[in-house]
């Protein structure tokens, strides 16, 4: 697309992050001691680790800090902050490499992040941490490998781990769960693989835990569908339900966001192939009234494939705004904000969950140096001021917006 398509959003600013505008799936707001509002962004791939942007004035974002990765064979696609602690996920390109795990930083001076500790997850069968959830300041819930974990299939190398970080200098695992059959030694048979080329693994992507239900973890389990876990005993998570809609769908369940008060679950897929090869990748509305039997009731409407697939790179669902249980995050149990790569950022009203209605979109023009020639909107965050932050996966950097619906 050569021109920005925008409806019911107002663009406030665009910052290409000085040529390092490829942003992953970590976006977190810190209010610094001096009152500045700092947005911490995880880079999608090497060489950069994370970038901190002062967004106090969302019309004039300013870079305040940026860190490089120690190795080019790693990425830090995910991060979260709680207070002045920043947690960053490290994943290596191949199993057995280092450093793989997560690092905690003291960011009380945003310009000068100081490492507190590194929690090592490396091992012969581990690539480390792809994604972490850190909201309560006490536990990190993550998708990670481990030195003692040998999967039945190399693509199932990551699983759900709960790490106690109440003492940030001494993180310690308190519980873990994997889909039965994916670890060597399991009595259950390994799950049937998805077809070659579409086999993206039985492993978690997002691992969300909310204060409304501290005894539940909501997992997008990639090729395994959606998983709800009972974590009332963190040392022994138990599966309550698994909603697996693959096949016929192409796998890669990504995020599960509960709308607790309304008994709904919003579930996103991730599109991982270009030009519509894994179409459709959707945002699902799931009836969660009976948590042991989740029932899909609708999907969010999308423009037809034939238009967007021609624009290059990926077109389909990816991240959702996750109603982060933090003071500086917006909460809505009616509006869904979702990113769709070259389909941009889209907003839906789920008041009638049987017929979610599109109420806005923002599809920026392709950045000048976009390798695919297309925008690839990757993730979205909304702060309590209702300022929307969205990022491009490759070069476009950060866009700040207001909602106007």
């Amino acid at each position: 697309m050569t021109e920005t398509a925008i409806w019911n959003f107002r663009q406030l600013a665009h910052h290409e992050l000085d040529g390092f505008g490829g942003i992953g799936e970590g976006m977190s707001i810190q209010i610094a001691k001096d009152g500045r509002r700092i947005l911490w962004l995880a880079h999608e791939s090497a060489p950069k680790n994370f970038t901190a942007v002062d967004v106090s004035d969302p019309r004039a974002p300013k870079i305040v800090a940026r860190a490089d990765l120690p190795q080019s064979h790693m990425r830090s696609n995910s991060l979260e902050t709680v207070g002045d602690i920043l947690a960053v996920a490290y994943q290596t390109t191949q199993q057995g490499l280092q450093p793989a795990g997560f690092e905690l930083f003291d960011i009380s001076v945003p310009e000068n992040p100081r490492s507190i500790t590194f929690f090592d997850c490396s091992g012969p069968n581990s690539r480390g941490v792809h994604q972490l959830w850190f909201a309560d300041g006490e536990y990190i819930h993550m998708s990670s490998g481990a030195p003692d974990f040998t999967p039945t299939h190399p693509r199932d190398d990551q699983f759900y781990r709960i790490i106690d970080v109440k003492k940030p200098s001494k993180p310690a695992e308190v519980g873990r769960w994997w889909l039965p059959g994916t670890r060597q030694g399991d009595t259950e048979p390994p799950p049937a693989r998805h077809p070659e080329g579409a086999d993206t693994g039985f492993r978690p992507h997002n691992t969300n835990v909310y204060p409304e239900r501290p005894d539940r973890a909501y997992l997008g389990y990639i090729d395994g569908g959606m998983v709800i876990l009972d974590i009332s005993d963190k040392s022994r998570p138990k599966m309550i339900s698994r909603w697996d809609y693959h096949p016929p769908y192409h796998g890669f369940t990504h995020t599960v966001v509960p709308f607790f008060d309304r008994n709904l679950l919003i579930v996103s897929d991730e599109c991982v192939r270009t030009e519509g090869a894994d179409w459709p990748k959707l945002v699902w509305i799931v009836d969660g009234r009976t948590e042991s039997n989740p029932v899909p009731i609708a999907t969010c409407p999308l423009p037809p494939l034939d238009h967007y697939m021609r624009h290059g790179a990926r077109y389909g669902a990816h991240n959702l705004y996750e109603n982060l249980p933090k003071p500086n995050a917006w909460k809505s149990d009616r509006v869904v904000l979702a990113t769709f790569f070259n389909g941009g950022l889209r907003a839906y009203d789920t008041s009638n969950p049987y017929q979610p209605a599109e109420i806005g979109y923002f599809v920026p023009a392709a950045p000048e140096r976009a390798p695919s020639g297309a925008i690839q909107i990757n993730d979205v965050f909304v702060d309590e001021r209702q300022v929307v932050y969205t990022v491009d996966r490759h070069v476009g950097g950060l866009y700040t917006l207001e909602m106007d619906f």
Partner: protein
Amino acid sequence: MSEVSIPSKWTSEAGPEGLFGGKDALLFGRRQRRARGPRLPVIAVTGFLGSGKTTLIRALLDKPEGANTAVIVNEYGEVGIDNALLRSSSDVTVLLGNGCLCCNVRTDLQETLRGLFADRARGAIPSFERVVIETSGLADPGPILQTFATDRGLGREFHLQALISVVDTVNGVGNIARMPEAKKQVALADRIVVTKSDMADAPTTGHLIELLGLLNAAPVGIAVDGEIDPSFLLAEPPTPQRRFDLGGVEHTHGLCSFALIFEKPLCWAGFKQTMAVLTALRGPDLLRVKGLVAIEECRGPVVVHFVQHVAHPPVELEDWPDGDRRSRLIFVTRGLGREAVAQLFTDVAAIAARVPGPDAVGK
């Protein structure tokens, strides 16, 4: 003997709000920041032939505020939006020089709007964020008002933001006197634009504005060569005025305009039943009713809009636009006066014993 059916109170229990509404179940869906919610705003411009509609629209499109507009015209006029701004042309939709779209309505308006929305959604035409409709000179605005309420497909996607009546100083007074359509265009408008004031003397313009004030309390703006503050055309209409001057019948030839004010919140069932009686018995004479209503069951004020027998879906707003929390309803009717309507609200209130009657005249 047939069973007597008692109309039930509007209840959310039967719908998705009952299943999935949570603690904050809403009567009318998600609370909106404004009456149009997320829907695409439609600005309909009425006015007699030669009143200056096209000039007004063309001047708007020339401004930055007019960008991203799709224009629907009934016929290409002599002034010609097409000649000045046309960039490329297809059968129905043309792309104007400023990136706006222009459709020549050869078919039904609803079909054109639906086609525009679908083409936009699939990326076949540029993304636009509003629609301006130039109606033909003799158009009765009633059906246009109804289009956005009756057609489920349109009512969900489009919202009639403003009905704008263009009246020229040279012919305005005569048209209003002779042509019922001209009078109705003025009476139903949300805003009135007076044109060609440079071609008449000040007393003539003053007389026209006075006459317009008798027909409608809507804001009046003056455009010279189509030039007027774009926000006068594009902004959200103000909430219905509390003060409302009712013109004498001798000036309005049977058209009545009046306001009802309610001090206390209404219960939805009582309000709905009162309006049901009015629309059932006098629907054809209920040219337009719009208002902002405090409903007992709702936290925010509710925007209501009726055109003859048709009710637009109510919209609950997040908050009141100002400190005045009283319900206000503006009526434009044919031969149905304020006293009868106010009495009906009072009578239903007495029966329901919950709906407070109107206690202030807008005058």
